[in-house]
């Protein structure tokens, strides 16, 4: 099982692209939130891949904790974001009976 790190980075890029595409194209707030989660996790994956590349590089003294630490921070932030975001979506639905972004453009006025 010797996956090259580059593959991991490519996967991360694909995931990010999927997330970004969903973010820009979908109209359902819940789906948009999910796409944000995908982009965050793509970032996590690239952190871990970079960390792995450093650990395997010639002359490296051992695995570095910086990448995983950042990934854990991002997971925490993502969890918070999901909690707040979903709470907002619920509040939104109670008030407007919709979660479609097309109907939620009040800020422009």
């Amino acid at each position: 099982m010797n996956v090259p790190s580059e593959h991991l980075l490519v996967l991360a890029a694909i995931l990010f692209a999927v997330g970004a595409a969903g973010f820009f194209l979908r109209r359902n707030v819940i789906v948009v939130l999910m796409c944000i989660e995908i982009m965050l996790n793509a970032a996590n994956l690239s952190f871990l891949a970079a960390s792995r590349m450093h650990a395997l590089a010639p002359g490296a003294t051992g695995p570095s904790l910086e990448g995983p630490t950042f990934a854990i921070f991002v997971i925490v932030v993502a969890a918070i974001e999901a909690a707040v975001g979903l709470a907002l979506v619920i509040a939104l639905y109670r008030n407007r009976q919709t979660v479609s972004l097309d109907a939620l453009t009040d800020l422009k006025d």
Partner: protein
Amino acid sequence: MLQQAPLIPAGGAAYDWLWAIPALPLAASLVAGILHFLTLRSRGVWKRKPAAHGHDAHGHGGHAHADEGHGQATDAHHDAHHDAHHDAHHDADHDAGHGHAKVAAGIGGLAAPIAALSMYAAFALSVKAFLLLRDLPAAARVLRSSSWDWIDTGTFPIDIAMHLDPLSSVMTLVVTGIGALIFTYAAGYMKGDPGYAKFFSYLALFGFAMLMLVLSSSLIGLFIGWEGVGLCSYLLIGFWYEKGWPAAAGQKAFVMNRIGDASFLLGSFVLAQLYGSLDMAAINAGVPGSISSHATELFLAGLLLFGGACGKSAQIPLFTWLPDAMAGPTPVSALIHAATMVTAGVYLVVRLNPLFAASPTLLAIVGIVAALTAFVAGSTALVQRDIKKVLAYSTVSQLGYMFLGLASGAWAAAIFHLVTHAFFKALLFLGAGSVIHGMSDEQDMHKMGGLRRHMPVTFATFLAGAAALSGLPLLSGFFSKDEILAHTFASGQGGSPLYFALWGVGILTAAMTAFYTWRMVALTFFGKERFDPAKVHVHESPAVMTAPLVVLAVLAVFGGVLGLPVVFHLPHLLGEWLEPVTASGTAILHAAHGEHAMSLLTEWLLLGLGAVIALVFAHMGFRRYRDGIAADVEAVAKRPRTTAFLMDAWTIDTKYTSFIVGPVKLFAFVIAVVVDAFAIDGLVNGVAAATRGIGSRVRRMADGSIATYGLWMGAVTAVMAFLFLWKS
């Protein structure tokens, strides 16, 4: 900056009680201010949130004043009463300003005894300091408290200490002594005024500022007092501000003083630059060493400080505020605008006498200004009809005398005249106040006459004051005025012919002084009553007002013993007492011009000339006006232009109005309309319009779609990331 060991006398905590001399009136001022607000509240005049305004009411009079205006303006009853009274008595410029609805003072009545007591206590402390000082050897006569580090900038510390030397001792005794008498008098004079406690709050605050001025060791401390007395002068001139014109007079005094004060500040900057200290002992010690090397700076500093003195002491060109200042209550005129504040300029010059002695040109300028002022003001007093205006111009004229003395290096003589003038001019003002009080607020002498039968005590004391002012032989004013003129004459003999001319002007002014003084006495107290005794109930003033008159009359008559002329072969008490302070300036003058003692014969001749002139012109003035106003009527009929010219003080003030005030107002209008309304407002509104314009274009970016926001965020992040990576 010159390097030298600063010769500041060491101070000590042992003399920290000197701070109590100014602090006592300050405390009294605070208490009186609180009492005033309690009075207002009990009258129901003043109902707005008491807590918010209560605490800054006393110390900072300006604020209290403003609040007050609101409070009284809402008091319909007061206004109605006041207007009725005003209509009955209004007489253009001659209204005394005493015409108020009388009201019971209530708890505010306590303010007068509190303020007066603080002044008597300060007088007691001044006497104590004087006695301590007297017991020291002459060269060591300085009491100095420990200093208060007011501002410490590292290289230029500003310390203030209480510095009591023979000069400030004389000044504190005069200020607290005469102040205490005038406070006592004012307790009677102001009775029934709605602002009774406020008046004493301001008056005690003035006492604090004036004592700060004369006791402070440094120019900055002196300046605090200098501005403080200016503030109190403004507040008290405009005390009856509801009438309008006293408020305008107060503003005029404040603005004209401000011109002088700016000059004062610039002068002290020059000294600070030169000596690295604002302590006056250090400056005086440093001057002799820098006369040859820094003559120009010393001249400049002296000239600028003299400019400040001109403002405060009402010399040409800044004298026009003092006659207007008579809009204030008469005790204020007596204390501030005759006896103490206006002499601050004289004090300043004597305090820094080495600086002024260092430049003969400066002394000549002082002399010319002084002689001109004395003459112009003296001639103006000849024709005035308002008794307070006569006294006001007389004060300007006598201040000119003091500066004339300073110009010839007669430091002690100037202080001597300051002291005797404080005695007799305070007396005359208080006497005039008593007359105005007794005549129910009449100030026009043409409507008085024959008052000696109605007001015997006022008459007798006024006579003593008039005799002293006109320089009748052996009274205080005779000796002090003669000493100044003798010194001026001696300076002329010493090789400066200019001083003979100054002396001549001084003699002329002495003649005019005698004339207008006795004209005033004759018009006021002699002849037939030129008012309807049935309507005006003339009465002698109460004892609380006449007692200070009697004390001042005694001082005015016998004050001369402080400085007897050389020919009497008796010690010149004041001169010897001030010797440690004035020695330095006198030494500089002697080094520059040599010492020239006048022969005793010349001295006798001058003394005799002074006596003859005083007697002759006093007699002339008295005889012409003893029987009524015919001489005045005749003068106006025969020489209308001359009398109008003199009446208007040589039209100087009118010229100021047309040539300075007018253009300044025009300039202000241009600033208001062109610069402010067009440029400044245009700039401000332009910024707002530009912001709005940009906003209306940029707002299209925010279309409410999350995707657009995300696109912007992503794009900007991408650009930033690219720049960051590309750079590294």
